[in-house]
């Protein structure tokens, strides 16, 4: 395949897995934003509005993290239910193109949800500067990259779609419970913070909090876990690690 053909292949996959389902089954879109919006509602009600921006930050990060689960579910569905994995393997489509195409389609699914959260951010009266917007975009791209690679690797190991149903929620819990996604980092007991570093979501949400200027909560200065550059470095390292794992361990061809 030439570079042009690869691009055509990637965009075609994103079209049939993203654009067409969105057009034909718009309820899919609702599904992608339902959970983050529910969490936001819950947090705003419980905090009497004080944690609105933390909820927005959490919604943005969670929407992107859910791409990994979606890639994993889609791949497992195409592999075990439709038996289409074999069809793709025995074709000019290379594994990175297939995964990138599916991941791009999931990104398209995430855009309406993320746009909604950004609108809420803008309407909350907090300024959005160019630098903070760029920082958020960078965080989201890195989350997208590692979540997609992780989802792909796991999906190649599953023999049946039901394994995905069991494993995906566990993965989501591992990635999202400990990191301070929906609350200030100061809420996290200090002895638990080292464990939060194990999840890449921690660095993503830390970066988004900094971009959104969430510098204190109720007058208490916010203890950012790391400086922005270190968060970026950590996310790049996680993404690179998951890509290496995907390249080495994913079972594109049955061993």
């Amino acid at each position, binding site marked *: 395949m030439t570079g042009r053909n690869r691009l055509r292949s990637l965009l075609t996959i994103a079209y*049939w897995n993203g654009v067409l389902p969105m057009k034909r089954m718009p309820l899919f879109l609702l599904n992608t934003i339902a959970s983050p919006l529910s969490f936001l509602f819950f947090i705003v009600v419980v905090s009497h509005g004080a944690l609105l921006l933390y909820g927005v930050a959490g919604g943005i990060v969670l929407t992107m993290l859910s791409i990994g689960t979606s890639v994993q579910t889609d791949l497992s569905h195409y592999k075990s239910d439709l038996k289409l994995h074999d069809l793709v393997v025995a074709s000019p489509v290379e594994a990175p193109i297939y995964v990138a195409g599916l991941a791009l389609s999931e990104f398209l699914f995430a855009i309406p949800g993320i746009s909604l959260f950004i609108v809420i951010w803008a309407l909350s009266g907090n300024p959005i500067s160019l630098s903070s917007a760029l920082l958020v975009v960078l965080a989201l791209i890195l989350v997208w990259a590692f979540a997609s690679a992780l989802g792909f690797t796991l999906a190649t190991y599953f023999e049946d779609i039901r394994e995905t149903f069991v494993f995906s929620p566990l993965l989501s819990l591992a990635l999202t419970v400990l990191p301070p996604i929906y609350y200030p980092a100061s809420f996290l007991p200090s002895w638990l913070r080292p464990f939060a570093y194990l999840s890449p979501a921690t660095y993503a949400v830390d970066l988004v909090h900094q971009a959104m200027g969430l510098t204190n909560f109720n007058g208490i200065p916010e203890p950012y876990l790391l400086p922005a550059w270190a968060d970026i470095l950590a996310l790049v390292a996680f993404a690179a690690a998951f890509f290496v794992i995907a390249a080495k361990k994913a079972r594109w061809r049955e061993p």
Partner: protein
Amino acid sequence: MDAVNTHGLGRTYDSGKDGTRALDGVSLKIPAGSVYGLIGRNGAGKTTFLRIIGTQLMPTDGSAEVLGFDVVREPRPIRERIAVIPQESRPLYFLTVEELVDLHLRQRGMARAEAKERTRKVLADLDLTRLSHKIVNRLSGGMRRRAMVAMVLASDAEFLLLDEPTTGLDPLARREVWAAIRQASRDHRTVLLTTHYLDEAEALSHRLALLDNGKLIVEGTPNEIRARVRWPFRVTVPLTIPEEELRSYGEVSAFAGGHLVFTREAQARSLTELALKRNLPVSMAPVSLEDVFLQLVGRPLDEATPTEEAES
């Protein structure tokens, strides 16, 4: 030139003491441009062989070259040149038939205009044009299978691997798929076909291989394979001729309407003359592939093998 050349090709699932030997030392050559049929019971090793050739499954023994490339070391150039219909595969349910074929071609890297033209042609060839704007989910199982066949036939691949492509199709639809496969062969494309339908294998294949329990039992043209069996002719006579008398001609088996005698050509002729002299209905013909299968394997084709679970 050979499209496929295998030497002692083998595959054991769950390697170890209790491993299931799904393919056992298969050596064969598939001439380029031919239609090659793989026949055998469920679990005989057909799909395992096809998946190794299609670079979807690693072999555990032996070697295989496809279009001159090694399946283990050089999968990429093979994948550029092949297209596959996996067994029991189903199309994406929310696409129309036209989108299914067109997007499959573009996913393979084909330019939009060429994909459109190839899609139009294959849908016409397989009598699917009237359904081109129908959502796949609203089609019958047979029509969906036909749409999958269309995806593969429309591709520019020089080697097509079809794993039971006509399962679930009605007789008319099967004939249309056959015609498309023959056209692919006329276009100098190689087709590797697995099937349960022996009439299909015989009607389409230039050469055939019969697998059983992962082993290659016999390989050749349909006529060569018939010539390999002990009894290449079959004579059907009424039950009024006693079985003891028939045994001197060959192997006898009874069925509801008469006796079936597997025999050699000279004996078949003399038995036919005997029946005609007695004014009895008689028919004589070369053995069918079904008969050959029974003679070579000792069991009918529709009986499953112990490795069926592993293969599926």
